[in-house]
Structure formats: structure tokens, C-alpha cells
């Protein structure tokens, strides 16, 4: 019974292949616009934050009004769910007409799809609004975790890691690794970080490593080329010291960044962190945190990364996805995203590249009571080579990830 069924499946699969259309050429923008009109774009994007969902809904209405392209936000619990779909389509030989038109993707997922050849492009540099993107001041829009993006993803927001705290409970927050260790010892049970390999937890480890190691330049090259033990010894030393004084004495960790945010809101921890500098202001507005909540960064700087919109190689509505990618780079849309009442995301655009009236939109934004102004954000630290993340995660799991 098994064999005829599979044969039937293969037959159906061969019948299902529709006549292939040429993928759109992003350099010929009028043709892209013409092809996009009437398409429905399925944007697979994390759906865990009602504010982000509302913003994407608004983008959809703009896209329809301006370009006649419908947008459907496919709300994901995890970006990997969209990656799973694309892999299944590729496995089934479905190289055209795929269900995922666009993915909101962050660095590591992006790199995986890029390496497996599952992305369409390059297209980012051909988008008309690319001219406003500040690639000088924001290197993470072109080099993600030390690996070139090569136009396979359009950056649309930048994230910086900021620490979050309640100034009513912590009058003077610790601003470097040594001070943090001191503070944790003095306030046992009031600090923790998401459990690696969660990306926010890894971000914290990398931030510490960059500050503590004697050889920060080694982190920019693959881990094999460095003396791993020597480079990372100070990090493990710091963690060995601090772990007994962590929340739950390090016997449990929050699952991810939202989980850590919840602990801060419940008063279980006093200092948390997130990759969104505008989150605390937005959370105060949403009555999730008291109005005494604030943010700070470490003195030596803070890690940053970008979010991208990528298009799978087999997307059915590539032209529509390109128009979407261009729209979210538009100054008015970027200014809306940066408004803390909406999202509080940091723009990827350069102010000096904008027309005066667009610059004025950004200047008029009140960043919110808890958001640091750009000149207080400190220097942007470079992400280590991705091979470090893999090795650190495995090492952390060996040292701290198993019950004693």
C-alpha cells in the first residue's frame, strides 16, 4: 500500500508544478511595482507583542492604500516555524509558489538560511529607499555577526542591548562587569539572565566577554584561530563568582527576554535587560512597569544588531515582498516605528541623508521617559564571530546548564 501511495504523491507533485515566472528584477523598480499590484504578501513575523502586531497591521493598510498590495501578518511564536516551512517546501521540490513571502529574521536564523541557499536576492541595495540607510554609522545593517549580509535581507530596525531597572529600588545601577558582580553579591537573588542558548542570554555572555577578556580582538575571528580557554577564562571566572548569588541561586533561569521582563515586572529581579531601548518607556505607558523604571548601558558600550526582512528563494509573491521591504524603509514609516508610543524601535536611517521635513519627523519624537538619548547610548560593540556563540553556548551548558 505504501508504494502506490508514494508514487501517486510523486505524480501529483509533478502535476502541481505551475509554469514558472521569472523572479522580479529589483533594479527595474517600476516593473516591480506593476507586478506587485494585486498581490497578497504573507509576512511571517514574530507575533508575541501586541504593539508590534498593531504596527504591522498599520503597515499593511499603508501598503494596500499606496501600492495595492495586501499584507497578511502570519504571527509566529518562533521564527524557526517559518524556516521549517521553507525547508519542507525545498524538500518537496517546491521551488516556486512557496507560502512564505517575507520573514522577519534576526542574525542567526538569517545566516542559516543564507548558508543553505534558501534566500532570494541580492535585493536590498536596489530598493529605492536604500539611499536613506546609514551604512556608515550602522555597520550592523550590512555586516551581521561579522558575516556580510550581501543584500539578502533589508534591515528595518536596529536593536541595542540596554539594562532595565526600577530606580525606586536601585538608586545607582552598576555600569560595568565588576560593579555588577559586586551588586549581585550584595543583593542576592535579584539578578539573572535568560538561559543560553537563548539569544538574549547569549548576548549577555558576549557583552561580558568583550569587557572582561584580555584579547577582545580575537573575538572578531573564528574561534578556532584563538586560544579559546585563555580568551574566555575571565568570563567563566566572573560567572563562577556570581552564579551562587543569582536569582534562584542559578538553579533555574528565565526562558527568554520576555520571561526576564516578566520577572522585572513582578519584582522578582531588580535589574533586567532587553535588546529594545524603547521597551521600558513603552511598558510604562502600558502599565506593565512602574513609572520609576529606567534604562542604562555599560560604560564600555553595548551590543547591537539589526532586524531584517528576507524573502525565501521560492516565495510566490516576491514583487509584493520587495515593495513591502521598501515601504518599511520609508522615513515616515521608520519615524512611526521609533515613536515610543508605537514601538520605540531604533531607525536604520541616517538623519543627514534625509530631506529636512523627514528629519523633522524624527526630531519631533519624544523618546520617552526611560529611553536613553542617542548620545548616552555609548559606543556600539562589535558582535563576535558567530563561531564564538556556538562554542560559548556549548561550554555554558557544560558548566551551568545541568543540575548539580
Amino acid at each position: 500500500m505504501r508504494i502506490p501511495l508514494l508514487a501517486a504523491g510523486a505524480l501529483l507533485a509533478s502535476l502541481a508544478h505551475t509554469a514558472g515566472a521569472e523572479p522580479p528584477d529589483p533594479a527595474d523598480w517600476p516593473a516591480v511595482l506593476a507586478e506587485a499590484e494585486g498581490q497578497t504578501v504573507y509576512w511571517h513575523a514574530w507575533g508575541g507583542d501586541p504593539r508590534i502586531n498593531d504596527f504591522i497591521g498599520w503597515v499593511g493598510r499603508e501598503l494596500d492604500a499606496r501600492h495595492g498590495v495586501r499584507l497578511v501578518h502570519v504571527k509566529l511564536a518562533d521564527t524557526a516555524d517559518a524556516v521549517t516551512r521553507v525547508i519542507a517546501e525545498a524538500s518537496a521540490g517546491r521551488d516556486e509558489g512557496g507560502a512564505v513571502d517575507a520573514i522577519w529574521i534576526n542574525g542567526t536564523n538569517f545566516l542559516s538560511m543564507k548558508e543553505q541557499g534558501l534566500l532570494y536576492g541580492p535585493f536590498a541595495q536596489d530598493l529605492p529607499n536604500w539611499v536613506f540607510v546609514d551604512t556608515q554609522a550602522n555597520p550592523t545593517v550590512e555586516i551581521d555577526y561579522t558575516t556580510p549580509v550581501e543584500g539578502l535581507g533589508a534591515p528595518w530596525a536596529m536593536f541595542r542591548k540596554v539594562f532595565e531597572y526600577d530606580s525606586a529600588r536601585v538608586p545607582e545601577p552598576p555600569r560595568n562587569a565588576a560593579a555588577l558582580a559586586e551588586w549581585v553579591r550584595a543583593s542576592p537573588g535579584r539578578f539573572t539572565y535568560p538561559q543560553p542558548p537563548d539569544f538574549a542570554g547569549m548576548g549577555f555572555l558576549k557583552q561580558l566577554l568583550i569587557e572582561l577578556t584580555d584579547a577582545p580582538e580575537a573575538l572578531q575571528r573564528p574561534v578556532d584561530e584563538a586560544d579559546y580557554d585563555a580568551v574566555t577564562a575571565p568570563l567563566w571566572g566572573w560567572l563562577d563568582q556570581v552564579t551562587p548569588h543569582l536569582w534562584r541561586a542559578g538553579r533555574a533561569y528565565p526562558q527568554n527576554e520576555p520571561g526576564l521582563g516578566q520577572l522585572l515586572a513582578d519584582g522578582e529581579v531588580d535589574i533586567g535587560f532587553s535588546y529594545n531601548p524603547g521597551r521600558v518607556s513603552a511598558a510604562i505607558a502600558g502599565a506593565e512597569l512602574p513609572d520609576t523604571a529606567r534604562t542604562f548601558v555599560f560604560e564600555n558600550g553595548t551590543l547591537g544588531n539589526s532586524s531584517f526582512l528576507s524573502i525565501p528563494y521560492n516565495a510566490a509573491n516576491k514583487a509584493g515582498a520587495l515593495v513591502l521591504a521598501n515601504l518599511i524603509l520609508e522615513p515616515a514609516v521608520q519615524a512611526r516605528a521609533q515613536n515610543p508610543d508605537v514601538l520605540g524601535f531604533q531607525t536604520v536611517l541616517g538623519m543627514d541623508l534625509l530631506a529636512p521635513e523627514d528629519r523633522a519627523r524624527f526630531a519631533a519624537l519624544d523618546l520617552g521617559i526611560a529611553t536613553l538619548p542617542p548620545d548616552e547610548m555609548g559606543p556600539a560593540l562589535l558582535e563576535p564571530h558567530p563561531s564564538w556563540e556556538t562554542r560559548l553556548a556549548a561550554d555554558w551548558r557544560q558548566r551551568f546548564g545541568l543540575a548539580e
Partner: protein
Amino acid sequence: MSPAPELRAATHSPVGPVAFAPGVTVLLLAAPVLAGLAGVVLPAFGWQPVLGGRALTLDPWRTLADWPGLPRAIWLSLSTGFAATAVSLAITLLLTAAWHGTRTFDALMRLLSPLLSVPHAAAAFGLAFLIAPSGWIARIISPWATGWERPPDLLLVNDPAGVALTLGLIAKEVPFLLLMTLAALAQIDSQRSLRVARSMGYGRVAGWAKTVLPAVYRQIRLPVYAVLAYSMSVVDMALILGPTRPPTLAVQVLEWITSPDLANRFNAAAGALLQALLVAGALVFWWLGERVAARLGRRWAEGGARHLRADTVLRPLALFAAGTTALAVLAGLAALALWSVAGLWQFPDPLPRNVNLRTWAGQVPALGRATGETLLIGLVTTLLAITLVIACLEADHRRGRLRRGASWLLPMIYLPLLVPQIAFLPGLQTFALMAGMDSGRVVVIAAHLVFVLPYVFLSLSDPWRAWDRRHAVAAATLGARPSRVLWAVRLPMLLRAALVAAAVGFAVSVAQYLPTLVLGGGRIETLTTEAVALASGANRRVIGVFAVAQMLLPMLGFLLALGLPALVFRNRKGVWA
């Protein structure tokens, strides 16, 4: 020897159109199940060309074996699974033995049965907020009773031994097993057996255990197996309540499969296969335990001890255990409902400082859209499933036990319950695409059927088989054809069991997240796709909104299942002893 008269009556009549049912069911499910399985087995041995795996190798197993958390993760899956199953079964049986047929029992059932429709994740979020050191109980008793101005640093949720996870599972599985037990009791004259036993001086609990339990347990065995398999492989509850260093095996598989490093999908497949083997092994172990228990139980029953005094301990104990279970889940849900309208709500305030409808107002449009879709898909899937299951069981019955046809293939439909869903899906997805089923409602319904049908089958098949065949003989001697026996005698008598099975199926359909999202290609938006996506943001207010909505739909199903028989048979007193 000629077959017994009732068997002859059944085998001599034409099997009729239902004869095709087992074949059709197996055809409908075999392909997706085999494809899903192939999608696990092949990558587990290194084969997944799209990801560069083009040679069969044992490397994924080596990677799995090298993971230092493996022994502990396996132990956690086994210990939480067995503990949750054994304790839920014990509470269920004890409560039924001690209180069935009383007003207290009916009241408790009314309290417990809606809990069946509560999504696992929502129940877990509610419980976690209830018992956490910064949770509702701590807020209510602080600081006046505890002196806590700040939440204490106590490891209650995510404890390394998995106690919180086990308690959460028990709270969710007791209602399921109780409902199954209730459906089973409808096929047994339990009250009369109990009356006889009691007149002979047996205590209530002991009399029930000695006379009714053997017949009841035979009928709820498959649901118990399902509870064991589910408890061992649960992901959503384990993520919220379970240990993290390491997590259970199922959670670790999820972590690998969602890892940005696509190479991890190979060890994820190996882990998923190991998980399936673990569940299969656990089921065999449980089955052996049943044999032993049966032997010991027979000796105990033959011993004739009356255990009259045991009732004074066991009856309050049963009430306490079941009542605590119900109250814990209900209080957790009440807390979530409160969160859905809460303004700022900080520790140790027992209640939010102010309330508003902002979260609800923001979610209502999505709720409306998603509710219609959820209902449509759930109803169609359930109708298909219950029709197929009844047709299969009826065909099985008409063939009689002596001539088993295609039904030996039927156990295969339980496979989707053994393999963790997330590992099962890629293969299912690839198969659907190869079969030309792109996306949309039809493929989602087909996928739901793969997961709904086993539950409907296991909910209904034991009560169906326990039905007294002499009714069919009586009807046949009055000249009724098999189809008339089915419609006029058997279905009405089994209405409650069928409706409960349908309600279970509907609840399973409503709860499907990944099949809806991934196979639907993102085209289908249900309450659960919305809820799970939003839950990933850990925002209790939004989770509260969707938990309430997600619970109400299946709850309607269960209320119908429990209420409908009473309504239909209001003029036939005594049908439901």
C-alpha cells in the same frame, strides 16, 4: 463448536457500507503518518538533502549521546510522565469510587469538566502565576502574614525534579480521565454491583474497587495510555512549569529543532525518535504493571476483606485531592482573567491598582476572525473523525472477533501520539506538498484529522466494545437490519460516549498550533495560532484574553456533550444509571 449466538447474528448479516471504513481510515491516515514518521527517521540517520545530509550515518545519535544532559532529561520525561499518570488515575478512580452517584460528585463534575477544555498552556500560565513566589497566593498573604515586601527567592516553579510540571499535568489530566470514566460507567451497571457489594458488608471504596473497577479500567485503558504518552512528550506545559537544567527530552528536541543552527535538526530527529521509543517502552512497562496489578487485585478481591473503615479516610481524601485540583486550575484561570483587565499590578498588591478593557479592545477584531475559523475547522474535523471512528468500530463489530479485516492496521493511527508533534510535522508537511496540497483550510483539516482521530478513537472504542451485544441480538430477532440496530439501538445507548469523544476531538482540534500554522502556510488564523504567538511574548494580559476565549469554545462542546443526552432522553429515565 459453533460461535456464540450473538456472534452468529453479527457475522451472518452483511457488513454493509461500513465495511470500507477501516480501509478508508487507514488510507486517509497511513500516508500522512508514514510520511511524518519518515520525516523523523531519515534525518535521524543523517538523511535530509536540503540541509546537506546526503549519506546515512549514525552521527546524529552520537551528537545526542554526547549531550551530557541526556540521562537526566530521559529520567525527567519518565518520572514526570509516570507520576502524572499514576496520580491522575488514582485521584480519578478514588473520587469515582468514593463519591459516584452522590450530589457531591455531580457538583465536582460540573466544576471539573470545563477544565478539560482549558488549553494546557493557559492552565500552566495560570498555575505558574498562582504558585510563584511573586504569584497570586503570595500576593494575597503578603506582607501581613509573611512579612514579604519583596517576592522571596524560592524555587517553586521550574524545580529541577519537575514537581511543578507533574502537578500541572495532574490538574489537566484528572478532568480528562474523569470524563472517560463517566462514559465508561454508562456501559456498566455499577450502582447495582456496588449495592450488592455493600449489602455484603463491603466498604464503599473497597466494594467499588472489587466489583466495578475491573470493568471500568478495561474501558479507560486507552485513555490512560494516551495520558502517559502525552505527559511524557508534552512541550508547552513543560516550557512554562518544567525544569530547565536540563529540560525534559521533548523540550530539548524543540530547542534543537528551533535552533538557528540547522545542523541541530539532525540530532533533533534522533532525539524525537528516542522520545518515541521511550514512550513505547513506558507503555509496555505500564501494560506489564497492569498485569501485576490485576493479579494482586484478584488475590485481594478473593481475600474478602471488607475495608469498611477505609472509607472514613479515603472519602475525604478523594474530595480533597479532586477539589484542590479543580480549585488550583480555576484560581489560575481567574488570575489570568483578572490580568486581562489589569492596569499596573505589582507585588504584593492582592489586586490590580486599576482595571481597564484596553487589552480586550485591542484583541477583539483578531478574536472575532479567529473564532469563526476555529469553529469551522474544529466542527468539520470532529464530524469527520467521529463518523470514521463509528464506522470503523461498527465494521469491526459486524465482522465479529473471529474475522479481523483491515482493522489490524488501525493501531497505526495512534502513532501520531507517540512521536513529538514538532518532529512529526516536517515529514507531514513535505508529504502534503508532494501530494499537491499547498496550504489553506482543507490541508489544515486533513492535518488536524491526523491528531484528532486517535483521540476520538481511544475515547470511544472501549465503551463501544463494552456495549452489551445482546441488545443487537434482541433487535435482530425483532427483524432489525444491522444499520437499524446501529441507528435505533446502539447509537442512542452510546450517545453520551460518542458526544464525549466528539468533545474531546473538538478540544484537540482547537488546541492545534503547529499543524495549523505550518501546514496551513500561515493562511489560516485560529484562536490558538493567535494565542500561542502572543504567549511567546509572555504578556499575561494578552494571554489572559486568549485563554478565556480559547477555553470558552471547547467548553461549549463539553457542556453539550454532558447536557445533550439528558435533554434527548429526558423521557427515558434510567438510561444513564
